[in-house]
Every structure is written in structure tokens, then in C-alpha cells.
């Protein structure tokens, strides 16, 4: 459950980008970059958790700004822009770390990862029951994202931009700025995801996230987001993340070979999106009928 918070937080970031009608396939590279940056930072300057958090978030946000500028100002299609940045980041990381793990992070920081809230004092089966700090981070991120999307001009702008870019422009939204901000927010979330991941693992492996972006997009899509933008919610994304993690967990518990995981997840994605489309088509047919009836009257 703890490790799924990384997926959840990253999915919140990708959610915002997808809502604007763009896509971000650089989440894996960005998270990996953040983990390496904060690990090196801690080894050099010590592990004050607050400073590490700020460094992590700033690194993510910076990458987000770069992606956003490429997409908004240079009009590079988001899938290509983030593909390119992801390639560059992953290449740079492997070049820099040579694929080696970074360990020996300061205690000051790794201790944060073991904090539990509402922990019961008794120890059951060797594990302490409670809410790990990572889950708390995910919940806070989800609540903030929820409020940003629902109650701020930025959030409403994102829905407007994803729904119809031209009308958003005419209402007076600065589409370019909204796009950059959405990617920056995504970067912030990847930064948080990277820090949270490091608190769990306590070592950093720059190759740990290869292919992770597909899981993130899968969680967002399962949560009912329209990939062409404009509709989708934080709640749905969280449910998508939960569904993915329950499937994984359930398969492990029922001792079904892990090789089945990707089959089951793939089939569920296919079914979820197909049902979505079939429902939309059905609804469209219904509305057309209503129109005809009105005309006759």
C-alpha cells in the first residue's frame, strides 16, 4: 500500500496534464531524476528533510516548466516533447550514475519514511498498524489537487482549455500559460513522488522507474479521464490507482503467477475504455432522437 502512494501522487500530476488535452510520458524520467538529485544532495549537504523536500519539488517543477515551454511556446506535440525529455533524462541519469544504486542516505531523512500516524501501541505479527506517512502525503496531495482544480481560476482554466482551446482563449484564459502551469504542477507532483519513493526505499536506483509512466497513465485512464482532455476528476484518479493496486495485491495474495498481472491490468484497461466509448455512443444516439422529436413538435 505504501509503495502505491508513489503511483497515486504521480497520477495526480499526469491527471492535470491530460485534462488540458496533452499527455505526459516523462513522469518516469522526472521521478527518477528527482530521486537521484535528492540522493546526491543529501550525500553532499546532509539530510534535513524539509530542505530535501524543497529540492525535490523544485527539481520536478523545473522539469515541468521545460516540458511546458516546449509544448506551449514551441508548439511541439506533447507526446513528442515529453518523449524527447524522457529520453534525455533517462540517458543522462544512466550516464551519470552508470546504473549504480545510491545508498547510505543520512538517517535524518530515512527516519521520516518510517513515521506512522494513528499507530497502535501493540505490535501485531511483527508489524505496527497505522497510517504510514507516505499515505498521508498522497492524501494531502489529492486534497490540494482537488481544491486547485475545483476552486481556483487555474483549475477551471485547465478544464476549459481541455474542453475547447479556442473558447478558453476567447473567454480570456492565457492558454500557453495554463499549459506551462499544468506541466509545472505535474512536475511538482513527480518531485513529491520522487521524495516519497526515496523515503520508502532508502536507496536510489535510477533504473527503477523505466516503464512506470505506462502505469501512471493507466491509473489516470482507469479513473475515467477523457484522454482528449476536459473531463476527469481527482477522485476518479485515486480510484483508478486503488483499482490497480488492489488487482496487483489481490493477485499476489491469491498466489497467481505475477506474469498474469500485466494481462489482467491490460484487459481491465481495454474494457474500461471500451465501455466508456460504448456508453458515450449510446448517449449520443439518445440525444439525437430527442432533437428530432423536438423539431416535430
Amino acid at each position: 500500500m505504501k509503495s502505491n502512494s508513489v503511483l497515486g501522487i504521480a497520477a495526480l500530476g499526469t491527471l492535470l496534464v491530460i485534462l488540458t488535452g496533452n499527455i505526459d510520458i516523462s513522469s518516469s524520467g522526472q521521478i527518477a531524476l528527482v530521486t537521484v538529485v535528492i540522493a546526491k544532495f543529501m550525500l553532499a549537504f546532509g539530510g534535513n528533510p524539509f530542505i530535501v523536500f524543497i529540492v525535490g519539488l523544485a527539481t520536478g517543477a523545473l522539469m515541468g516548466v521545460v516540458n511546458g515551454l516546449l509544448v506551449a511556446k514551441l508548439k511541439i506535440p506533447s507526446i513528442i516533447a515529453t518523449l524527447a525529455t524522457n529520453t534525455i533524462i533517462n540517458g543522462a541519469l544512466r550516464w551519470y550514475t552508470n546504473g549504480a544504486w545510491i545508498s547510505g542516505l543520512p538517517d535524518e531523512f530515512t527516519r521520516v519514511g518510517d513515521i506512522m500516524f494513528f499507530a497502535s501501541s501493540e505490535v501485531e505479527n511483527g508489524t505496527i498498524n497505522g497510517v504510514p506517512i507516505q499515505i498521508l502525503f498522497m492524501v494531502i496531495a489529492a486534497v490540494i489537487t482537488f481544491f486547485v482544480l475545483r476552486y481556483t481560476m487555474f483549475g477551471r482554466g485547465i478544464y476549459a482549455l481541455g474542453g475547447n482551446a479556442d473558447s478558453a482563449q476567447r473567454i480570456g484564459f492565457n492558454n500557453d500559460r495554463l499549459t506551462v502551469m499544468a506541466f509545472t504542477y505535474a512536475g511538482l507532483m513527480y518531485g513529491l513522488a520522487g521524495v516519497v519513493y526515496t523515503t520508502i526505499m532508502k536507496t536510489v536506483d535510477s533504473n527503477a522507474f523505466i516503464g512506470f509512466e505506462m502505469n501512471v497513465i493507466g491509473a489516470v485512464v482507469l479513473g475515467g479521464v477523457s484522454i482528449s482532455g476536459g473531463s476527469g476528476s481527482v477522485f476518479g484518479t485515486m480510484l483508478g490507482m486503488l483499482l490497480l493496486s488492489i488487482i496487483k495485491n489481490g493477485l499476489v495474495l491469491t498466489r497467481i503467477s505475477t506474469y498474469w498481472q500485466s494481462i489482467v491490468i491490460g484487459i481491465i484497461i481495454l474494457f474500461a475504455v471500451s465501455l466508456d466509448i460504448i456508453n458515450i455512443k449510446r448517449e449520443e444516439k439518445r440525444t439525437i432522437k430527442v432533437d428530432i422529436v423536438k423539431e416535430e413538435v
Partner: protein
Amino acid sequence: METLKSNIQNNKQLYMLVIIFLALFILMSILSPSKFLTSNNISSMMFQMSELGVLAIGMSIVILTGGINLALSHSSMLAAIIGTLVMQAMVSAGMNPLLTILAGIIVIIAVSLILGAINGFFIAYVGVLPILVTLGTRSVFEGIGLNITKGSALGGYPPEFNFIGNGVFLGIPFPFLIYVAVIIVSTLLIQRTAWGMSVYMIGGNVKATELSGINTKKVLMGVYIICGILCGIAGVIMASRYSSARTDYGSSYVMQAVTAAVLGGTDINGGEGTIIGTVIGVAILQVISSGLNILGVNRNFVDIIIGAILIAVLTIRFFSNINER
């Protein structure tokens, strides 16, 4: 003279690509004449280019319709794995090696065609976005492949099978000949037939294409089936080259194929691009990675450069479009 001028005007992007390719080729030759410009290196580049090239052509046909196929390499490998099982069974039954190889190739391409048709069904007839469908099928194909191989590599082909991926015919690497055949056939298909025209039209505007009397669903289905066949061909080459099949072979080719197609002038939103552009894109990627490799540049640094080139080319295109307006 007039026609030449308009020809250059129309294919400006293509000529720019050729110039970039030649410039890179000459640059690498100058930087490392004793290693880059040897028949040994050129032929090893031809070997490597063929797998990516066949996949990239499949990808660019899909991108022409405004789609994308993330399941590219996993379809190749799932088909190759099933083909391997068939060949293993036939080898242990002591059947004629040539017959075994033929059966293996047919099975690989047939399975891959079916996998393409599955993608096509969801995209054309259910109407789900290609990126979502192929995200799902990629996961499914990978899972089935893993279930069969348990994560290891399957081999055990008749020795003659190695020729397809490693053989040399008339001084030219055999997979490269397959690649050239694929280039010719797909160029004719896409750029010289009515069907190919409708592929471009779908990429431009699906609704308008449908209203002009073209069965867009059928065309889309055909596009993904063709992409499936190309995946199968690439699967045969890869299985033969590595004399084994494994789910994660070629998984980096998916993004490289997109890169090559976009580098070659294919519009990611569909409707624009040529097969020959993609072929040059693949060649550019190959010259960069082989050349830098010979110069002793770290393999990972090559990725950085390829990413940077992709962004640079698109940026140049953006500014040249502004100037034209």
C-alpha cells in the same frame, strides 16, 4: 528547371533530411575514417537498421492515420515466441529444417497479423483512442509472452534459421534486403494506391473522409493489420538475429520508431509524412548511434543526443513555419 524548382519546394523537408544525413555521415567519416568508413561497420549498421526500420515503417503508417502503436515491439515478440514454440516442437519431432523454418515464419507473421487485428478492432470498430488501446494490448501481449517464457529467452531453432537475421546475400546483409523490400512495397501501397490516399485522408479529417464515401473503419483496420504484419517481419528478423525470443527484446524500439517517424517529417497528428522520410529518419538515428559508439561515446549519452536532435528539428520546423506565414 521549373519542375526541379517546384520539386525542391515541395520536398523541402525531405531534402533537408537528406542533407542532415549526409552531413552526419561525412562528419563521422572525417572524425573516425579508419573505423566508421569500413565495410565492416557499414554492414553492421545495415544489420541493426533493418529491425528498427521495419518497425518504424509500421509505426509511421499508423501515425499517418493520427494513431500510435505502443504495442509494437511486444506484438513482434509475442508472435516470435509463439513461432518459436512451433519451431521447437517441429525440431524435436525431427522434421525437415526448411519446412520448420517456413512454418515458423508463417506462424510468426500470422500471429502478429491477428494481434494487429485485435488493435484494429478496438480502434476502428469500438472507437477507442489508439494510445489507450495499445497501452492495454501492450500490457496483455507482454503478460502472455511472460507466461509462456517465464521471463527467459526461448531458442532452439534449426541452424539454418540464423541466416535470415545474420546472413549475407550478394555482399548485402540479408535483413537489409528484407528491409528494402518492405520499403518498396509500403511506399507503393501508401503513396501510389487509392487505399494509401484514404490513409492520409483519415489522418487529415476522419469525419470528412467518412462523408466522402470511404469506409474509414475498414481502412483503419487494414492499417493496424499491415502494422501487425510488419511487426511479424521484424519479429522474424529479431528472433533470427538473437537466435532466441524474449518479451523485452526490442522494447526500446517503440520510442525510437516514433522518433524516426517524426524526425522523418511525419506529423504526429496524422495526415502528413512519407515512408521515405521515415527511412531517412531511421538512417540518421543509426549513423548517430553507430558513429558515436565508434568514437567511444557512452551509449547513454547517445540517447541524450537523439532526444536533443528531436527537439531541435521540431523547433527548427516551428520557426520555419512561422517564417513561411
